[in-house]
């Protein structure tokens, strides 16, 4: 059932609407009473979640008798952003993921944020799907703040992702949807995968399989599930950031999600005017590349890659 869970009037003859698709199972077993939320479209340039939402809804609707509980799908919590290919909220130039938990006393955006939190709160699990940005490609991964790691890792392992990155706590991230939900008792997992403005079907299907595996583990899905992969967990291993020091365009010479040796060639930053190699980018440590630059133009400081350091995983 489709419901508008938050809305506000725009200036001329239109309302912004945040829609939820609630799919309730028709299993013959004792009702589980459980609810899982799938949320995406916070940033208007991140589209991978669109496919995941649609694919999940399609499978569930075709197999309602195997669903025991409720799955709430929110494909676009920043609908104006997606519609206008704008990362933030158009007009306000605001990052939607920096205004949670929101407030009814605030602006339109803050009021919508509060309604979103209120609708999701109380779910057994919320999956918040992001897809990097237009600059970087990410291997399917779950990002977990260290303060919620113990509680969330068991669920993160169910989602069929390749990597779980436990990152340190940062005050600025306290305004995110995931932080707001986690601190008010709704377990929320942040998925990052793919690249902005694209749909990477292979990654989307991988995550969808993970979602059904999670539903199975929660006792909400009676159908078959695929064999899921075991993720690498960052744990004590360091994450090295590789930033460009030169300006120009970057051409990689490695594949994404491969092991790499310290000093190995990752790619070149090239001066477009002269053709000169302005910087030969090499790995600062051995490990595995889980983030790789997708958008070629770089300034000094542009992120080229992230490497999970420490050991090989072959």
């Amino acid at each position, binding site marked *: 059932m489709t419901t508008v869970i938050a809305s506000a009037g725009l200036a*001329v003859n239109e309302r912004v609407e945040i829609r939820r698709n609630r799919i309730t199972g028709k299993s013959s077993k004792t009702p589980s009473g459980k609810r899982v939320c799938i949320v995406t479209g916070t940033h208007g340039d991140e589209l991978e979640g669109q496919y995941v939402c649609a694919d999940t809804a399609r499978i569930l609707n075709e197999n309602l008798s195997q669903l025991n509980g409720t799955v709430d799908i929110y494909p676009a919590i920043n609908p104006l952003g997606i519609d206008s290919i704008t990362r933030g909220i158009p007009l306000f130039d605001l990052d939607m993921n920096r205004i949670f938990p929101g407030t009814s006393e*605030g*602006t339109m955006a803050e*009021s919508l944020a509060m309604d979103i939190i209120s609708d999701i709160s109380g779910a057994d699990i919320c999956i918040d799907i992001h897809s990097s940005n237009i600059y970087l490609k990410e291997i399917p991964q779950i990002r977990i703040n260290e303060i919620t790691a113990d509680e969330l890792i068991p669920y993160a392992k169910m989602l069929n992702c390749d990597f779980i990155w436990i990152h340190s706590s940062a005050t600025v991230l306290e*305004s995110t949807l995931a932080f707001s939900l986690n601190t008010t008792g709704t377990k929320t997992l942040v998925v990052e995968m793919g690249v902005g403005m694209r749909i990477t079907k292979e990654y989307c299907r991988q995550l969808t399989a993970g979602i059904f595996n999670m539903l199975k583990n929660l006792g909400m899905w009676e159908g078959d599930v695929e064999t899921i992969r075991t993720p690498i967990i960052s744990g004590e291993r360091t994450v090295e950031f590789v930033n460009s020091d030169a300006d120009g365009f970057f051409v990689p010479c490695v594949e994404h999600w491969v092991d790499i040796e310290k000093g190995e060639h990752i790619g070149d930053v090239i001066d*477009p005017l002269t053709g000169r190699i302005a910087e030969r980018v090499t790995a600062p440590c051995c490990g595995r590349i889980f983030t790789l630059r997708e958008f070629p133009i770089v*300034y000094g*400081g*542009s992120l080229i890659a992230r490497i999970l350091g420490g050991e090989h995983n072959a």
Partner: protein
Amino acid sequence: MHKQVLYSIQSPYRQPMDIIGFRFGKGEKAMCVVGAMRGNEIQQMYVCSRLVSRLKELEREGSICNGKEIMIIPCVNYYSMNIGKRFWTMDNTDINRMFPGYDMGETTQRIADGLFKEIQGFTYGVQLASFYQQGDFLPHVKLMETDFTNHDDMTDFGLPYAFVRTPRPYDTTTLNYNWQVWGTKAFSLYTNATDNIDESSAKIAVDAIIRFMVRRGIVRASVNSGNLTEIIGEERLVQIHSPISGICKSYVKTGDELRSGDLLCEISDPLEGDVISKIFSPINGTVFFRYNRPLEFEKSVLYKIIKL
């Protein structure tokens, strides 16, 4: 005056972007003023440029106090200003969400780091700030409440109002917050404009900064005594939201004194022209903020009123 490049960033397709600082006097790092960090902060750059001009005069008259150094940085991000963008040209990040910066980090983290290294150690810091909300504000000074602040310092600007703000999580990466953490007494000064130039509020801002420097023994100058500043907390500001979207016609302006029940504005249907809502002041007070765009959304903040 000494004009110097504080930090420079290269682009593959443009001339380098230099962050230029204007240094007056020598000795103790007394006062630093930072203008536009976003590409639409034209007024903020303009205020700094007027300040540089005024300080040049004072320097010629020998009115910079001995042993005091002043730094003015009118524009941190003219790459964006020159192409009409608000945030950083390539990745749309906000330099004022990157402090204290990181010299091995992303481009805007490097810019923040390069700037911050040059402006640390000043006793006082002023950022000419802007709001993301479209509207007119009464000029005021704001201070973020941390363990390092002293509210009374704000009164030396001689502006009618000074606000104390409790930092939100996203404030912790701003210049103002980090300045304070690193020992500078930092203030944000707001005028009545951002994308365009408002001469009268620019003059108010320049006078306020000069007045502060006079009162703190940094310059000698003739400047009026300004206002007796009222320091107020966020709880004194009452926000008036629009109950409905449409075209807004305001009957009050910033600074107006209100009685409870006064008509603030009418909202009309954008297609049919009928008045569909009238909004009245719920309290006695002073109009501090007024939304100034013709089209407004449901739940837009139309007014902020300082409660009497």
